[in-house]
């Protein structure tokens, strides 16, 4: 490096383990260094055998420019010592498996660590196991499946799963957790919507379900977990043995919210007290479950397709819709009308977004441009971009904290695994 170049003082700190810690003295470094250069300096200081990429934080933001640009943009004095915190960088993911389906994959759910659920336009939902084999096939809907929610389980052997469909109904299934290939039929059917049901969410205590529909209503249903005991199970088996179509227990909604004026596209039930809903009428709303009151309405400039609640204190709402911008809103500031963060990197509409279940900083989005992106909200640039599908990506979700599942309009269902990362 030429001698004429300017140097700045940099000190490194970290919260990583002692084997990845460098001494806390200030180094004099040339200003043209960017993340890569800094990472290599750490690597040489630590004398690591293989290259390990690090990411650097300044003032709660990830560095994506050279040090010079950083100094200029932050208006720092060239004499001050720059304190940079370093963390492990997230490497590009590897494709674990890719499964063909018969039609578009419209819903995935990775809440349960032992299996993944996917819903398709061929009206079937499927349970997949970690080795990539298809377990049970959930047969019963007469039209495309739009969304899948998991409502916990009453015992260790099976999982309560609720699916919503374009046939205006929701169905409850009991999916066995052990790998076995079988065809299941539904235990319960939820009828009442006047149009295609677009989304479904269960409350954290797994007693109630809410669903949003094209008829622009949100309906709340009770699962009634007490009824479904062994009798039900026996009846199920009997039915399977008989092969005859018996009437399934029907459930009707106990509450309906009608404030939305357009299709309700996404729902989330982060706590038992309240529900979040996003709609094509450009707004997302918060509802109090006890009183059925719409407690918060935020209006966006575009129709919303997806919504996810998470982040710090589970109070940040990420929304995506009919434009390539992911918006993050802070519900603790109800007076504000603008998102706290707008992330633009996609080139087409955003189809789904999901906060990481443990990390308050990581976020996953899928878009109609065929990519799935992982974001760290400390940076305006996505951490990783995967060109997951050849066509639109319709849905994506986290599974087991380091794996991403996605489904798209190319009728594929894919799993990507990130190299081990420490979520901070």
């Amino acid at each position, binding site marked *: 490096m030429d001698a004429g170049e300017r140097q700045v003082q940099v000190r490194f700190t970290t919260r990583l383990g002692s084997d990845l810690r460098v001494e806390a003295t200030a180094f004099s470094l040339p200003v043209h260094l960017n993340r890569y250069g800094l990472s290599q300096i750490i690597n040489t200081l630590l004398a690591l055998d293989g290259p390990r*990429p690090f990411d650097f934080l300044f003032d709660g933001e990830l560095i994506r*420019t050279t040090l010079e640009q950083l100094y200029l943009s932050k208006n720092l004095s060239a004499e001050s010592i720059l304190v940079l915190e370093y963390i492990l960088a997230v490497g590009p993911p590897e494709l674990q498996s890719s499964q063909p389906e018969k039609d578009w994959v419209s819903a995935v759910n990775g809440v349960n660590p032992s299996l993944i659920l996917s819903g398709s336009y061929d009206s079937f939902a499927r349970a997949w196991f970690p080795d990539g084999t298809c377990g049970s096939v959930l047969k019963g809907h007469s039209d495309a499946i739009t969304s899948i929610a998991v409502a916990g389980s009453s015992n260790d052997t099976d999982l309560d799963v609720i699916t919503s469909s374009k046939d205006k109904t929701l169905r409850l299934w009991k999916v066995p957790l052990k790998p076995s290939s079988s065809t299941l039929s539904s235990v319960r059917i939820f009828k009442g919507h006047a149009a295609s049901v677009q989304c479904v969410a269960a409350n954290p205590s797994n007693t109630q379900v809410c669903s949003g529909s094209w008829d622009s209503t949100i309906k709340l249903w009770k699962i009634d977990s007490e009824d479904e005991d062994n009798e039900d199970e026996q009846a199920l088996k009997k039915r399977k043995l008989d092969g005859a179509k018996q009437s399934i227990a029907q459930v009707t909604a106990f509450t309906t919210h009608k404030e939305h004026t357009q299709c309700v596209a996404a729902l989330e039930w982060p706590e038992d007290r309240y529900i979040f809903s996003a709609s094509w009428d450009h707004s997302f709303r918060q509802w109090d479950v006890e009183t059925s009151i719409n407690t918060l309405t935020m209006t966006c400039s575009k129709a919303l397709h997806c919504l996810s609640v998470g982040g710090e204190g589970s109070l940040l709402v990420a929304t995506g819709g009919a434009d390539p911008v992911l918006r993050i809103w802070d519900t603790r500031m109800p007076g504000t009308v603008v998102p706290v963060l707008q992330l633009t*990197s996609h080139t087409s509409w955003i189809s789904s977004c999901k906060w990481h279940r443990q990390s308050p900083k990581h976020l996953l989005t899928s878009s109609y441009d065929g990519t799935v992106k992982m974001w760290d909200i400390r940076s305006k*640039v996505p951490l990783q971009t995967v060109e997951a599908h050849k066509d639109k990506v319709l849905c994506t979700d986290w599974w087991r904290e380091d794996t991403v599942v996605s489904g798209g309009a190319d009728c594929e269902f894919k799993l990507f695994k990130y190299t081990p990362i420490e979520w901070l």
Partner: protein
Amino acid sequence: MCSDLSSSQVKQVKNAVKAAKRKLHTGRRGNPGNAAKYITRNKALNRLQIKLPEFRRLCILKGIHPREPKKKFEGQNKTYYHVKDINFLLHEPLLEKSREIRAYEKKITKARAKYNADLAHRLQNNRPSFTLDHLVKERYPSFIDAVRDLEDPLTMIHLFATLPADTTHSVPFERVHSCRRLSLEWQAYVTRTHSLRKIFVSVKGIYYQVEVSGQKITYLTPHVLNQILPEDVDFRVMLTFAEFYETLLGFVNFKLYHSLGLNYPPVLDPRLEQAAAELYALMKDLAGGTTSAPLLEDASAKEDDAPVSVDEQQSLMEAENKEKRIAESQARLASLQDRLKQIEKEKEKPQDDLETRTCRRLFQNLTFFLGREVPRESLLFVIRSFGGAVSWDGDGAPFPENDEVITHQIVDRPTQGHKFLSRHYVQPQWVYDCANNRILLPTEPYLLGRIPPPHLSPFVDNEAEGHVPEYADTIKRLRLAVNQQLAPLPGSESGIDEGELLVAAAARRREDLEAEKERELAAMEKSYAEDLRRELAGKSFSGEEEALADVPESEVLPPPKEDDPKDMAKMMLSRNKRNLYQAMEMSNTKKKEGVKLIKERKRKADEKERKKTRTM
């Protein structure tokens, strides 16, 4: 072959049926043709039984325009009217009234012809009169309609207020006088409510923009100069318009004054009126009535005032030689009271909107003195509207030139003999520029004897035009600085104010920057991904840098692709819309060329300047 023939035959039959149906349709429904819908002017005159000048007058008063039928069935060079409009005129009471008046005139001429002076005189004094009140009501069913349509009336009334009463053009002095009164009343209302928003002094005259009842009204007033009445203007038409507008503005003023809880017409201070300080006289009167007081109290206050003015008149008659001194001291007292009341008034009116508040406070603590050579009425209007106190060189002035409180003296002459050190001697343009930008500009460039900076029009949206003059930029920066100073707390009132002022400009800039930012982010994302890949592959940093340099710019930054979808969209348009779009594009390029020309000129002027300084 056979099938082809049959198909063509079928087509023929179908067409014939269609044509027959069409014929039947028009025949049955009686969709009226042009001949039934329109009528030529001559026929209309016949139908109405009036002469052309009378017809013209009626049309103006009723607001009826000639029409352009698609097919001019009685020749190209004729004027057509809607039959409906003519029938509408037929029912006009004024028509009957004008006939009556004409008959009456005949009586007078007959009496004169018979040398019956007595009768002629009596008849002359008892002429029937008419009003246009019902027409105002008919044409403007709601007040807001009238306010919305006030631009032309105000321009016309202000024009007639400055015209000389002229017998050759039959401009009667009564008309001029009442126009003058109406325009002053209007200005007094605007001053009182601080609703003046923009001023632009042009060669044509002075443009004012006023916000009344939420409507922005822009009107033009002539400069106060000797007006020459041109020969090629039909004053009869102008006078008819003025006649109607007079009635209209009278109604509007009445309503506006009553909305403030004031009497209409306002009572003028006779002494000040004599001293030709009409606007001030009016404003003094207006300031006398408090806003919060209900009408009744106001009326009683007026009664209290009345004997005082009578007393004054008496004293005027008694001691004319002392008059001037007394008048001066009284006027000063009046102005002091006036200002006291104004200060009180400031504390009320929490209902005023933000804009009005900023306008009211602009010149709040400043006192102006107008020199003899500056346009007094316009400056008086502007300064008072923006909350300043003002006096002038002349009769009836509230305070003299040597008063210590004066902070700014407005002068428009090359040199000034005696100068007070305590005040700024500025040119009139300073007042207008300050008012337009809502900040107190530095007085230095506007000082006596200097060439002031360009007077920029507030009606031009610089950023939309594409060219921001240098001085506009300076003013913008000044405004930013002032507003930041005024915004100590984020949430305080002035903070909101600042936000509102800047929001529009910021939004526009944001749009420009957004595309660039996006490209930057994309480049960052790409380089980050590339880096990570290289690092994992185990390449060293310095090598990486060279490799990155090899990558051509176009590859790093995706070229903005916008032509293709635009062309597609253009193809999808209908022909009408495409033509419209082309016209739009053409005008845009024209605008751009204009801007280019201005920039080129500016560059040349700068160069010349530089050369000059170099040679010096």
